[in-house]
């Protein structure tokens, strides 16, 4: 077995491991609240984490051989997703040890599971299901690639690590805020499943209509590219798109029902105030690191591109994220926002961080705005 094949196996094992350990934690939180089940969930997570760490070490070794120095394995979109998910898992493991409550894993572990498998899905789709009408992210990164010269810098290591820890902490804070929201709505006699499902369905509805509008208004967003050159009538194109969007909305609703069920189970053992305080603490942990990460990125930009700050789309979204969390902390510390309002901001913050981390690549691609941070080959 060659090294690339071994890497693939490790990655598939890691992806499956994250799914299994999340299922283990869900089972522990909702169905079998037995010590043994908790131990099994812990063991699954630790095994997955070790497997993931092995992949990162192999990739570090690849880069070390190639570049004669340490390189953080986050040089492509897949690697960045993988590294962020590893960091989120690490933060959760440390958090579980400190908090001594493993039920949170049922919700928080969704973050590394989704991030990692999203990256892996892109590879799988491109590699094995290329003929299906499904687009996916660039698979570059699963197999080791040469490092672009601009990325060969100590500032990259400092910047990326700081940003990844902050993203992981902010994601975790948002996930805990979602738990808070579920408990809050339950206490008010409002079904969180129904309310959130309506929002999800409405969101996907708006998304579908936006795509249809783009399809007709802007030729470059032609939805027929999904069919890879096959001649398909407009109603069929719109129908397939509707089905796909409805499918995604259904998955979203199913996740909400699942999370609500888990949240209800967790909230039996933890008070609302504790969840709120934990969410706040994770965000307060992530915020200084976000500030430091942006600063380190700016120093790197000054070394590499000759300017400290250039309003590149990625930089701008990092600034938006910083502004948002500054407002969050101000509202919490000065205006005394706690509980619901603070929690809603924390949940919304996850979307902003997601755009900064991954979404900005799509934003710049959709709107053809030039940027230097695109995890894409080209201007190397």
């Amino acid at each position, binding site marked *: 077995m060659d090294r690339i094949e071994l890497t693939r196996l490790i990655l598939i094992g890691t992806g499956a491991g994250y799914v299994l350990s999340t299922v283990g934690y869900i089972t522990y939180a909702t169905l079998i609240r037995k010590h043994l089940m908790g131990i099994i969930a812990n063991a699954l997570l630790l095994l997955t984490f070790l497997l993931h760490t092995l992949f990162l070490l192999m990739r570090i070794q690849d880069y070390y051989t190639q570049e004669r120095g340490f390189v953080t394995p986050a040089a492509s979109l897949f690697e960045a997703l993988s590294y962020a998910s590893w960091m989120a898992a690490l933060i959760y493991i440390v958090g579980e040890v400190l908090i001594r409550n493993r039920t949170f894993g049922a919700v928080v572990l969704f973050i590394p599971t989704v991030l990692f498998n999203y990256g892996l899905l892109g590879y799988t789709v491109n590699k094995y299901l290329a003929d299906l009408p499904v687009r996916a992210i660039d698979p570059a990164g699963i197999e080791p*690639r*040469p490092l*672009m*010269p*601009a990325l*060969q*810098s100590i*500032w990259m290591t400092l910047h990326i690590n700081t940003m990844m820890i902050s993203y992981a902490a902010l994601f975790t804070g948002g996930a805990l805020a979602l738990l808070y929201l579920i408990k809050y709505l339950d206490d008010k006699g409002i079904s969180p499943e129904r309310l959130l499902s309506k929002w999800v369905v409405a969101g996907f509805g708006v998304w579908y209509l936006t795509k249809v509008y783009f399809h007709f208004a802007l030729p470059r967003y032609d939805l027929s590219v999904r069919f890879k050159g096959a001649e398909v009538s407009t109603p069929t194109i719109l129908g397939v798109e509707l089905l796909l969007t409805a499918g995604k909305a259904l998955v979203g609703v199913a996740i909400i029902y699942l999370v609500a069920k888990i949240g209800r189970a967790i909230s039996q053992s933890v008070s609302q105030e504790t969840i709120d305080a934990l969410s*706040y*603490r994770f965000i*307060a*942990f992530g*915020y*200084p690191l976000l*500030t*430091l990460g942006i*600063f380190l990125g*700016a*120093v*790197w930009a*000054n*070394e*590499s*591109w*000759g*300017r*400290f700050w*250039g*309003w*590149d*789309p990625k930089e*701008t*979204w990092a*600034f*938006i994220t910083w*502004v*948002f969390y*500054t*407002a969050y*902390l*101000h*509202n919490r510390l*000065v*205006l005394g926002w706690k509980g619901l309002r603070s929690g809603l901001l924390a949940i919304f913050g996850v979307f902003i961080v997601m755009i900064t981390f991954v979404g*900005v690549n799509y*934003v*710049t691609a*959709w*709107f*053809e*705005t*030039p*940027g230097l941070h695109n995890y894409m*080959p*080209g*201007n*190397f």
Partner: protein
Amino acid sequence: MATIPQAAKLKRVQSEPGLLTLIWEKLNSLPFVVVVLLIVGFFSITGTIISQEPLLQTRGYVTLIDTKIFGFIPYTVSLPVEYVEYYGPIKAWLLHFLGLTDIFHTFYFNLLLIWIAVSAFVCTFKKVEEAWEATFTPPVDRPASFFRVGRDRRELELMEEEDPVRQLTEALRRLRMRVRVGTPDEEGAVRLLAQKGIAKRWGLVLLHVSLSLLVVFATYGAIFSAQGAVGIVEGETEVFSVDPYENKGPLGRAIVTALGARPITVELELRRFEIPLNFLRYPPEWTRRPETPEKFAHFFSLSNRDYKSYVTARVAGTEKKWVIEVNRPLRIMGIDIYQNAHSSMVGFEIFSRTAELSRQFEVSMGLPFQITQDGRLVQHIPGQDNPQAITMPMAFTDVKQGAVYRDGRVIEVLPPTAVLEVYDPLTNDVVFRDIVSSEEPVFFTENIGLKLTERTRPISVFTYKYNPGMPGIYLASILIILGTLFSLYIPYYELYARVKGKRVQLRLVRQGVVGNPRRILREVEEELNDPARRLPG
């Protein structure tokens, strides 16, 4: 109808806040700043979905002349061609007019940023006042009702009756708390305040001051900065001036002139230029454009930054030798010099097989040119056929030379080799494209040909930047991070106490993310443990 008495009318008129008061109030208002932050966020998002001119590598500009907006507003404006293609002329003009094509440099966006900075500065006064009060004149005396509410409170009874205030004060001081004794209340109880972690309050001051400093240094840097680009042929030296007066608006120029900022002369010599032709190092889709035929596999490469420029710089009597690479700029006397791009001066010869003709020229890579009847090389302007020209317009679009590597080893040394493109003089379409080198000439006729000479020399293009605000920006950024850490991670405790006889009431107030109020209360109890016993309930 009831009439308002004159005095009341006057009072109402006088009580209305003036503009300055209103601005001061708004600067001090947190909700207002949050709204401004949201507006900044909105414009920032807009700036990421509309291409911004400074980031756009435009193909050229289109001048829209004497067109009527909405049918009656005439305008003349020069816009990058991409905007006109993407949005159409009217929308493109509107976006440009509203500043949305360069939003981060519009006056209103910068005004919003300045508002936030000034607001942070104004807020600093409030924070200084609060920190000063907490440090030097904290309110010690709290009413009895204050000790009956709140989660973190205790009631203790001291074992010894003798001087209970002294006992408590000493115990708290042993816990490294700053203790202040207040005045007795109406029941004769003595009030105390013990504080721990006062640095947190000053951390907030530091955070706000450093935000203001960041804007101050950024503005200072913007006024006195200078930047530009210079291309240097290998083996040659360029002397250029770094002048803060250039590329400034009228106000910037006036300030620079008034403050007497002077240009700095820089002498930069490109001793050697080295670009490893490491074609196999990078995946092909990184190094060539998708449409590149296999024959031109090593050419039409995208901008490769993997190269080195060996330079010597001299500024104000200081000399520095350096190898400029990506992530490794040259720094000398406050001026930073970065690698930007590379090109070539292509040496070529037009010759005849019969040796009747042999004439050598030198031209920049990418520059379209023609040869005239009198043997001169002239630049070709697309769409304009030069009647004096005896050749079609042509250009060397990519040039490679030097050692070719594979797996870190040199496998061959490539002589100067270029891609030659020949254009239709009127339509500018490529009519011919081939590879030419000193060993492989291209023939236009049976007799006349073109080949490269050994005189092909690389050009390294550098950008230079002088920004005296940078050290201040770095300092302010570090202070922001420190201020954030201080204000979030130093726990600040205020322990209020009310002592009446042997009975002590305590209430703890905590600020910050970390800290454990119960632990602090337990420590106080333990410290008082010998002479005190906790009251049941």
